[in-house]
């Protein structure tokens, strides 16, 4: 393997098997808030699971997720076709090493839609999503792997909000969409990922960046308001009731249209997400 392939492979394994320090602390704070409850028992299990997964470098969850790649490119760095090919090879190797759950559906368009073409038993056959690339001022070539599971994808919503020239209206709508999404997810406590943009593509790109960069220790007032409001729903861990339905909100607000509409992408990330790791290439 090339140096880039090895780094990407290792990064993917870390993304699928490791809680970051701020993520562990977020769980410890949540556990301390409601000792002796069913919710507390679940969150302790999730944290214990993370420690075992990190030690064994094995999957946090059996739905190991679809790899999504976010790349930051500094002014003097390049992303060539050759670099992209090495990144893809590193992802393939990482999926085999984790190991990822074999989830590549085979066949033509029709076969892939109705799943009649069968599953490829090779974990490495799972194609990553299109790559998101962003220029940054820092002179780096930095890659983040995010492993996105199916449950949050089912409950995620990307839709317009008529803002009526009020941030509160947008927050109210995000909360109204998030509560049933968190409740139906099953694998709470969630981290809410929110992107706001001018189109569905831009809003989703903002949401991806929020997932790639969000930090449980650094929450804006906007993010805290959403978290606190959704936690009033008392969904709790695994829906068993409790104070912590949402650990945090990671939000990114992009450029906005001169219009009465905002496009909001919302993903109720499950109790292990955002599963992510970062490496400099």
């Amino acid at each position: 393997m090339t140096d880039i392939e090895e780094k990407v492979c290792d990064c993917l394994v870390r993304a699928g098997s490791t809680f970051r320090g701020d993520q562990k602390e977020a769980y410890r704070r949540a556990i301390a808030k409601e000792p002796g409850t069913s919710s507390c028992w679940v969150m302790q299990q999730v944290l214990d699971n993370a420690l075992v997964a990190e030690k064994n470098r094995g999957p946090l969850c059996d739905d190991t997720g679809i790899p999504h790649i976010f790349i930051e490119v500094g002014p003097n760095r390049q992303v060539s076709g050759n670099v992209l090919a090495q990144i893809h090879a590193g992802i393939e190797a990482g999926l085999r090493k984790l190991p990822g759950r074999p989830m590549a559906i085979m066949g033509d368009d029709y076969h892939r839609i109705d799943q009649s073409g069968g599953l490829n038993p090779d974990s490495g056959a799972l194609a990553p999503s299109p790559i998101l690339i962003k220029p940054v001022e820092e002179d780096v070539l930095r890659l983040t792997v995010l492993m996105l599971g199916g449950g949050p994808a089912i409950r995620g919503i990307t839709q317009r909000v008529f803002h009526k020239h009020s941030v509160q209206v947008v927050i109210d709508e995000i909360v109204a969409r998030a509560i049933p999404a968190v409740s139906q997810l099953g694998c709470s406590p969630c981290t809410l990922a929110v992107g706001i943009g001018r189109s569905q593509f831009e809003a989703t790109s903002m949401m991806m960046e929020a997932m790639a960069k969000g930090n449980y220790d650094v929450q804006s007032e906007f993010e805290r308001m959403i978290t606190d409001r959704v936690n009033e729903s008392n969904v709790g861990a695994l829906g068993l009731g409790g104070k912590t339905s949402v650990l945090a909100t990671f939000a990114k607000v992009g450029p906005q249209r001169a219009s009465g509409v905002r496009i909001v992408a919302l993903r109720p990330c499950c109790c292990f997400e955002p599963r992510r790791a970062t490496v400099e290439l």
Partner: protein
Amino acid sequence: MIELTTPFTEEDIAKLKVGDVVSISGYIYTGRDAVLPKIVKHAEEGTLSEVGVDLQGQVIFHTAVSPAGVGPTSSNKLEIESSFEPLSRHGIKMHLGKGAIKPETVKALAENNAVFAVIPPVTALLESQTEERDVVCYPELGMEALHRIKVNKYQAIIAAAKGESIYK
């Protein structure tokens, strides 16, 4: 913590109530959307023995069995939740998964002295507590085939028992 070993007796299940944390050991079955309707059909037609399945006192864990490990899928998916009543009637004592189930499913469990237990999706922990994995039938379904696995102290919380549910 209530220690349980499969196969469960009627008395084992009768004493369980919502909110109890249980530890499960022994052989259990796994299956989800793809295979459970087939097992229900065998149960209703009296042909379970032809596919090597004995449901008496057993647990069905709603999971795939893949190289990535095991972990609960949502038990309220149509094909899964609709298996609760017939499989309980034919001997399953514990359905193991996650997510809120309907009131009529809670009632059907009670009528058959069976329970629903929620298990957190802790694949790494479960991997260290899973000792054997065998395909029982429908191998063509791959990770979604009916498997029998041997487990050691899986922890779960009773979410529906005696007509009551932990989900408000």
